[in-house]
């Protein structure tokens, strides 16, 4: 009995297919390396929100009406939200659209790479670039615009769940959005158009409560408004609540809307994602 067991062990098993996680990890490393080699993409994705922050923060001075909070501090929270959406929604949808157009997706679909590993790689890419973006914006916010970084666990816990829900929703929507542009040439325009519009009505550049009610109603359907509001609740004191809708941070609604977009995003991905194999 025991000798049979030893014999079984002695037989060299042919190596099996690599696991979904190990290939996903390889995909993530590959995508991150590929991203940071493309200097123009790095510049646009990471540096653009920083540039807007520095420009707007320097041009528009003063305090938000009815509060003792500087506009630039509100702006940092807003840019943080748009930066997170930029590295997930915008960068991902344009990137995947390109990969579909140039045949990268088809090439991958022809290998034994698990399909799920591709998406794990994209998540790794988004998390890496988002980390860089958050550090950049918070650093500049703290250095130049008197951003107050919270020192208690409670605020950072709020940051964590807002960040995770927000980036998950934006990532899934970015993957789904990649199916919308007709070709890679139109991708940047098709993706940026709604994103730029949303930035203006979601309280990223313009203080949210000063917007017309109709625009606020539109913005409150989409994740960006809630992401910006969530980051304001982390980095602004409660004294700012007088300038917030309903005088509250609305955390429960925020969690519901962002989680709802995660579910909707997942469904949209499943319905729309194509590997570019069948024309």
């Amino acid at each position: 009995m025991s000798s049979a067991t030893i014999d079984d062990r002695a037989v060299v098993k042919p190596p099996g297919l690599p696991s979904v996680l190990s290939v996903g990890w390889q995909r993530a490393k590959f995508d991150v390396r590929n991203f940071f080699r493309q200097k123009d993409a790095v510049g646009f994705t990471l540096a653009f929100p920083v540039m807007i922050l520095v420009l707007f923060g320097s041009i528009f001075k003063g305090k938000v009406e009815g509060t003792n909070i500087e506009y630039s501090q509100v702006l940092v929270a807003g840019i943080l939200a748009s930066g997170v959406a930029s590295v997930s929604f915008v960068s991902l949808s344009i990137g995947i659209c390109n990969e579909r157009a140039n045949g990268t997706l088809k090439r991958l679909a022809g290998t034994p790479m698990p399909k799920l590993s591709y998406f794990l790689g994209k998540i790794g890419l988004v998390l890496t670039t988002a980390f860089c973006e958050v550090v950049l914006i918070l650093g500049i916010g703290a250095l130049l615009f008197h951003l107050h970084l919270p020192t208690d666990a409670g605020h950072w816990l709020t940051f964590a769940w807002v960040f995770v829900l927000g980036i998950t929703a934006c990532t899934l929507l970015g993957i789904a959005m990649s199916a919308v542009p007709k070709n890679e040439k139109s991708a940047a325009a098709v993706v940026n158009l709604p994103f730029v519009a949303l930035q203006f009505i979601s309280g990223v550049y313009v203080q949210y409560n000063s917007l017309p009610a109709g625009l606020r109603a539109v913005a409150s359907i989409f994740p960006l408004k809630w992401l910006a509001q969530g980051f304001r609740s982390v980095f602004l004191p409660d004294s700012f609540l007088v300038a917030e809708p309903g005088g509250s941070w609305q955390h429960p609604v925020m969690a519901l809307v962002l989680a709802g977009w995660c579910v909707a995003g997942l469904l949209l991905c499943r319905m729309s994602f194509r590997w570019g194999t069948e024309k």
Partner: protein
Amino acid sequence: MLPSRAVGGIVEGIMNNVIEVSGLQKRYGERTIVDQLEFHVTAGEVVSLLGPNGAGKSTTIEILEGFRGRDGGEVQVLGVDPAHPTRLWRSRLGIVLQDRSLNEELTADEMLRHFSTFYPQPRGVTDVLELVGLSEHRDQRVAKLSGGQQRRLEVGLGVIGRPDLLFLDEPTTGFDPEARRQFWDLIRMLAHEGTTILLTTHYLDEAEALADRALILVDGRIVAEGPPATIGGRGHLGATVKWVGADGAHEQLTETPTAFVAGLAAEFGGEVPELVVSRPSLEDVYLKMIGIHQ
């Protein structure tokens, strides 16, 4: 229960025929792209699907690669219906697509290393670089490689997983003659190692240089099949002898060119002026067939 011998026979059949296609049908709307296609490829063979643009070559190869569905017929590739691809099945295939989709900012070494992580028993990256002749360029960014070198890298990606079957879809389109020769040497080397290869091309000389067998596809049908040297009755069509006599240029079609030339030589008492003996080229046969079938 089947008797064990029958089972053995089936297994053997699958092992020998790497690709088996019968009655394959594919339509796009009203248009029939592939019509009742019937062929097989045995282990170790290099088979070329030859035909003009729009003949259905790429559609056929993409059905075999598991990229496209079909409207009818039976298809087995390495014993599996490609309509239901599995990872294990994919790990035994190498696919070189028509599109160029390399990551320009990465190096040949990085691309090969990454793709090797998808397979259970990949070849070594250094070996593949040597095989495809890119050892000297391993750390160069893809963008800096020439078109031919990029294509060889794509073949490298196709064979990194040690495939039993390699698909090449119009691999040398847009190559200069020297790059094509180098590419052909690579394919011959792979064939010599025992890799079964199915390639599509619209270059006749490519089929002639590489393939053990060619299938000429016109309008989604196979109109001729056989070794490139004899396809379409090429081996029996006789030879044309051309020469220049005192009264001008002559041309004679003959079944016995050797005897005919010997006769000419005797007539001229030595060298025959501007003597040319030629068999119909594959191109002649091919153009005749396209002409007949279109």
